[in-house]
């Protein structure tokens, strides 16, 4: 419909309707937007609004007690040039992401393939293997982890059976981060469930055809299962990577909030928390948060760009 009609034709055709595009839009979609309203309020009030405020705060010096003071890009400049802890936390976080995500996905896929054989009691196994993911980010599990990997912990008691005198894994700067990687891998439940669903989508006749042609199970896995599963692998990789960048609770509990020993578990989020709530540098912490956002966005963009070279969408 044209609302820019010439005066001559306006009377004849569009005049009665031209008052109404908004009204019509509202009549058609109003109910839908009303239902969305609670989400809109939540999104703009609790997510987008505070996020924008934090963008503003990232250019200020703000200690919560006195009003924010505009200091331009000084926070970002310091992060880029003069912050040894930023560099340390980057190292720790990237090590954690690059180790925990592939290991976790490999483990989840292994268990999913093992479970995908129509065995009896499958729902039970599925539930049991999923359980750690439900408990995973809880404080209780992090505390349990401390007990397991402490000097007098269960792991060392077990090793003692073989005459091995294990170190205190959790409080040794050389090993503490790896205990957190193991904790992450242990929470393989949610990617496993998604892998299982993906495995169910693969047509059985492909395997039948392949075995008629004499392909071994191993070959079937590499030539059929994995290629057809790549969309699911891709999805899991993106979600798990974002999660790993945002990991906080395990390091916070296990290191008592310090990121120690010697910054060996100083996750980026933990450093951000220390700056904000330990040392009351809200402006600086906001700048750190925005840098994390950019890093995650870059990683995700890179994943999507690379996807076309290795993800197979059949249909």
């Amino acid at each position, binding site marked *: 419909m044209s609302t820019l009609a010439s005066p001559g034709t306006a009377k004849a055709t569009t005049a009665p309707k031209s008052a109404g595009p908004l009204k019509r839009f509202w009549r058609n979609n109003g109910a839908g937007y009303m239902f969305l309203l609670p989400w809109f309020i939540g999104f703009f009030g609790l997510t987008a609004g505070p996020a924008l405020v934090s963008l503003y705060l990232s250019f200020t010096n703000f200690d*919560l*007690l*006195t009003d924010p003071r505009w200091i331009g890009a000084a926070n970002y400049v310091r992060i880029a040039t003069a912050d040894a802890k930023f560099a340390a936390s980057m190292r720790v976080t990237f090590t954690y992401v690059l180790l925990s995500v592939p290991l976790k996905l490999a483990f989840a896929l292994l268990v999913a393939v093992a479970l995908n054989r129509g065995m009896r009691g499958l729902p039970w196994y599925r539930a049991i293997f999923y359980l750690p993911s439900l408990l995973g980010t809880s404080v209780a599990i992090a505390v349990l982890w401390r007990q397991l990997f*402490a*000097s*007098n912990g269960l792991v060392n008691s077990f090793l003692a059976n073989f005459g091995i005198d294990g*170190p*205190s894994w*959790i*409080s*040794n*700067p050389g090993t503490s981060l790896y205990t957190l990687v193991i904790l992450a891998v242990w929470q393989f439940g949610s990617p496993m469930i998604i892998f299982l669903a993906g495995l169910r989508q693969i047509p059985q006749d492909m395997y039948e055809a392949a075995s008629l042609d004499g392909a071994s199970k191993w070959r079937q896995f590499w030539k059929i299962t994995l290629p057809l599963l790549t969309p699911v692998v891709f999805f899991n990789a993106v979600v798990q990577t974002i999660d790993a960048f945002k990991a906080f609770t395990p390091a916070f509990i296990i*290191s*008592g*909030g*310090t990121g*120690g*020993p*010697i*910054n060996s578990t100083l996750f980026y989020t933990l450093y951000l928390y*220390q700056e*904000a*709530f*330990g*040392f*009351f540098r809200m402006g600086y912490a906001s700048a750190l948060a925005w840098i994390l956002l950019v890093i995650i966005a870059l990683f995700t963009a890179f994943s999507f760009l690379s996807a076309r070279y290795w993800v197979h969408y059949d249909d």
Partner: protein
Amino acid sequence: MTFRLNRRKLLAGSAAALGASAFAMGPGRAFAQEQRLRLMWWGSQPRADRTFAVTDLFMEHNPDIVIDGESIGWDDYWPRLATQVAGRNAPDIIQMDYRYIFEYARRGALAALDDFIPDTLDVSDFDEATVQGGAVDGSIYGISLGANSSAMMVNAAAFEELGIDLPTNDLTFDDLRRIGEEITANSGRSNFHGLSDSSGVEPFFENFVRQRGKALYTEDGELAFDASDAEEWFSLWAEMRESGACVPAEIQALDQRQIETGMVSLGHAAVSSAHSNQLVGYQSLNEDPITMHAYPRIAAGVGGGHYRKPSMFFSVSAQSQNPELAAAYINFFVSNPDAASILDVERGVPESAAVREALAPQLDDNGRAAVEFISELGDLAGALPPPPPLGAGEIDVTLVRVSQEVAFGQHTPQSGAEAFVAEAESILARDA
């Protein structure tokens, strides 16, 4: 976090709500003048129980006043308080620490209490130095709830098993190392050493530099020690580690600076560092008897490392609608004998002489030990140091990290000391 709503409060609350709605439009608000105060503190469950009991007692004495109490742990307390102050929603009565009182007072978050002294708030039988401990720029912003000092907690059973005498006030660092070596070498306990590695314990380090005639910070908020002090300190503990007197680095790193994770509580050492009002907490977590002793002297006859410190204050928020009532509550808290008998010495030794006297007969062994420890420091105690500047909290954390870097061999005592001082100076410059 604990929030208690009992029947009386609920009734009072709903009555107030009814009254408010009925008379909101009416002339004036003279009817049913119920007054509410909010109170927030950090601490353990036993402290929460005692504080709520005192609050209930206060409300019995003052039926038209309702006090809402809120208790959380130390780590969560400061973010929450800062957020509430920033949100103009601060509690009326705020438990305050020496580390933060200057910061909060100077930024206008606390109310000066001078106008309420002595009529509402009677501190006449407090030690004058104690009252001044809560002063900022000439005005009183905090009332001390008890005195404490840093101290060593000792597993007395581990000493007794080997026939070693408990430390006295004449103990030196050399004595301490010999004791540590002896316990490590002879104790039958598994994975057990004489001492915890205290190289990252700020109060112990402060005690050490004070004995060397220095301090952590000057009045102007500069560092009051230099790299040579820190190097001596790190070397001293490096020797302790080498001779086996103290626990190795990876055991010490288990300590998360809570009573529960101290080396004594974990059963890894016979001696560790704490504050004197924590004796009660240490004993409740340990089956072996725990005794409390002063830090060692750097040489015979040298003292002045310790100081009597207000363990915590009650302050009044500058945003409070009724600061006078808040002051009255604080007065009740620090001087009412019944309140004192509920509170015991859990927040440190009471500052009021009358209260201390009234309390003396009812104290148990731990309580008496806490009182005696403070009163018998003698020449070991010196003057209260200036309050720590902004950034001191981060320097405290930095000391822990650098001490670990030295202990794990990433730094020598000398390079560690230089790194620590350089980092501490840059933190102070940043927040100044």
